């Protein structure tokens, strides 16, 4: 299998069509692909959320993501891994994170995608700030995210 990984951290909106295609194309030699996209919840806009700012630690984030991907490759037989994360200002409805995985079988691809997301949320150096009009609030870490990552230990 090709066993390639691509990581993108960018303030530019996602090209979802291209990202989906990159994973789908690799499915031919893999057998199964799983794609996850996380977005700024539109329902939060009803609670007054006007947008979100994503900050990260350049250099460290890339290193953390490479380690997470390396660990996923050790655990499952994977072909293509694609991880993208937005930084900067995002509006409700906009995608924040994309994880695409193709592998030999569906169970492995599902597990790998979930593992990458759980670890990304727990380890990758990103921080979210919510905007409610003129008011700004830094998002606090959730215990449930810590629990989600712990199940892979």
């Amino acid at each position, binding site marked *: 299998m090709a066993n390639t990984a691509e990581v993108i951290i960018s303030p530019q909106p996602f090209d979802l069509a291209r990202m989906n295609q990159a994973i789908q194309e690799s499915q031919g030699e893999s057998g199964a692909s799983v794609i996850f996209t*996380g977005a700024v919840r539109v329902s939060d806009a009803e609670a007054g959320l006007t947008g979100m700012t994503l900050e990260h630690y350049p250099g460290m984030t890339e290193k953390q993501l490479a380690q997470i991907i390396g660990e996923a490759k050790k655990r499952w037989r994977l072909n293509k891994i694609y991880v993208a*994360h937005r930084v900067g200002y995002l509006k409700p409805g906009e995608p924040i994170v994309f994880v695409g995985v193709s592998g030999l079988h569906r169970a492995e691809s599902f597990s790998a995608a979930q593992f990458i997301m759980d670890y990304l949320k727990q380890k*990758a150096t990103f*921080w979210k700030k919510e905007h409610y009009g003129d008011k700004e609030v830094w*998002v606090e*870490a959730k215990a449930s995210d810590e629990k989600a990552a712990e199940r892979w230990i």
Partner: protein
Amino acid sequence: MKITVLFFASFKERLGVSDIEIIIDEGSSLSDLCEQLAARGEQWQTLFAEAEKLIKASINHEMADLSDCLADGDEVAFFPPVTGG
């Protein structure tokens, strides 16, 4: 020895600074650096006095513990628990 110290997210805003350079004694640990930084003023003291679990730190892009030793030229970062994804 010279250490570059970075702050991210709410820490950066609370201290009003994103990066500083610190001169610290040879053989100092991350904990010694915290002590030196806490002495810079009230905001600094409050931040570094917070429960240890709320302060995350890295040395040269790897997560670090307070007992870890520093070396000349290290890049240290302090930040709150991550909230990406």
